[in-house]
């Protein structure tokens, strides 16, 4: 049996990233779905960048932006005493950007599908904007939230390039499952590589099956 530490680390990283992205991605997706601002296409393009860029490009810039010489990196050292690069916290920050489109795009689609009509109805029933969001938009886009969270979680589990660049391969801190598989292959330990890889294939299939089953069920029945 291979060391399962990388698996738990991957799950922790994906979990933390998903929760943080729920808080950051929801207002951004709502803004994108409802705004008439001329900045919207620009923001949408920036949000989608991680989909098209090689992870090494993101990883490279994160390495610089989070490094001890950078303002962010040196500030982090000042308050925690640790460097941000090659740490779990650094991985979380990189993952947030790397997985951003997987949270924002499904949410934006869900909010656009809710549309203006129920929100106007809520306003006509004395619900303020925040109240209307939580009491109407949120429940009506519940499936979008599930699908966005599952995709974000799964995508973070699968990330490799950014992790390698920003986090390296430190057992218990930054050695996530994809790095562990890479290492097993490099050291010709094919048995453990098989177990982890097959496990990841099964996991990803189950996740996607959930998402597509949900999508089918969410077709409007009115």
């Amino acid at each position, binding site marked *: 049996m291979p060391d399962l530490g990388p698996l738990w680390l991957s799950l922790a990283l994906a979990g933390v990233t998903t929760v943080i992205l729920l808080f950051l991605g929801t207002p951004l997706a709502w803004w994108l779905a409802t705004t008439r601002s001329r900045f919207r296409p620009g923001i949408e393009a920036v949000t989608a960048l991680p989909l098209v860029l090689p992870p090494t490009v993101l990883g490279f810039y994160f390495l610089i932006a989070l490094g001890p010489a950078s303002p962010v990196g040196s500030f982090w050292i000042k308050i925690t005493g640790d460097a941000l690069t090659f740490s779990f916290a650094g991985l979380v920050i990189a993952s947030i950007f790397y997985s951003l489109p997987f949270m924002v795009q499904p949410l934006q689609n869900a909010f656009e599908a809710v549309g203006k*009509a129920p929100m106007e109805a*809520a*306003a*006509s*029933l*004395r*619900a*303020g904007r925040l109240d209307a969001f939580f009491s*109407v938009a949120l*429940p009506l886009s519940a499936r979008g939230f599930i699908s966005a969270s599952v995709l974000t979680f799964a995508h973070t589990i699968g990330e490799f390039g950014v992790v390698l660049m920003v986090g390296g391969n430190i057992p218990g801190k930054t050695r996530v499952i994809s790095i562990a598989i890479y290492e097993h292959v490099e050291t010709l330990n094919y048995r453990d590589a098989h177990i982890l890889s097959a496990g990841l294939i099964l996991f990803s299939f189950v996740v996607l099956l959930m998402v597509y089953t949900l999508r089918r069920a969410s077709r409007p029945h009115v």
Partner: protein
Amino acid sequence: MSEVSQLDLDVSVSYPGFSLEVRENIDLTGVVGLFGPSGSGKSSLLRVIAGLEPRASGSVKFAETCWQDSDSGRFMPAHRRPVGYVFQDARLFPHLSVHGNLDYALRRCGSDQPAISDNEVIETFNLHNILHRDVHSLSGGERQRVAIARTLLTQPRLLLLDEPLAALDVNRKSDILPYLESLPRRFDIPAIYVSHSASEMARLADTVVVLQDGRVTAIGSANRILGREELALSALPFEAVSILQVRVARHLSDMHLTEVEYQGQALTVPELNGTLVNDSVRLLIRAGDVAIALEEPRSISVRNVLSGTIVSIDALADSAFAMLSLDISGSQIKAQLTQHAVDELGLAAGMSVFALLKTASFDRSA
């Protein structure tokens, strides 16, 4: 009725290819009908009043309270305006049951002891049996009943009804109309009712505001506007309708008829379900349904004969018809006859005549 509130409008909104400009002070008594063809801006005006069109410039004042004024930059958001909005498509929340939808409004009405209670609307709109249903399973008519009940629970001071019957078929319309008719009397809230249907206007409105191409072209009592007495209406194709306020005298249930009385004259109409003796009811009389006789006819199937006087006769340009105005004990009724008949009978203003109305012409479902 409580004291009359006024709605002071001085608003304009532009959309691509269309602009709405309305400068009007409207007395809100009973039901104000906003009448005009589709695309004339009726719904847009209603949305402006409700605060759902933030782009509208100008000012909206209700009972001396300023709801918006682009000069001072004031804009009261929709959820703070004490209006109840009933949308054409009901817009019930699909994630809540019927009861959940009502509760949504009640919890936000800002009062622990609201004047209009949930029990009252459940009873008025007959919602007992559907209270725990999923809104997806409701019929169009049921949806609208729930939507109107839900709106009332916000304790509005002004009701805005945006063609609530437009999406319903004829039978469902006649299910909902009695509820709408009873609204102003029962809850004492002024309403603005949008529709392009002259017969809905005649059934519900006391005052009618006519909107054409984004401008108000006429404003007056329902009888006057729907009787086509305004020149501005010549471009609007609808049949002149007269309104007769009658009293229910008795129900002849075995014959499915109801006898009503107007100023001592009796009329027989199809049974008015849900009305009680002595209730005041509106009868609509389409000008084309009225025939005229010089003597009181006998041996004739027509049940209703009203005696009156001809007030005026106007030839309708470029048609075979003339429009007669009759005075029936103080109410004006329009009758559309062929010019040929007018000539042959020698009809003229001042003559005493009998107006003949078939019972079937009072079918209220139409």
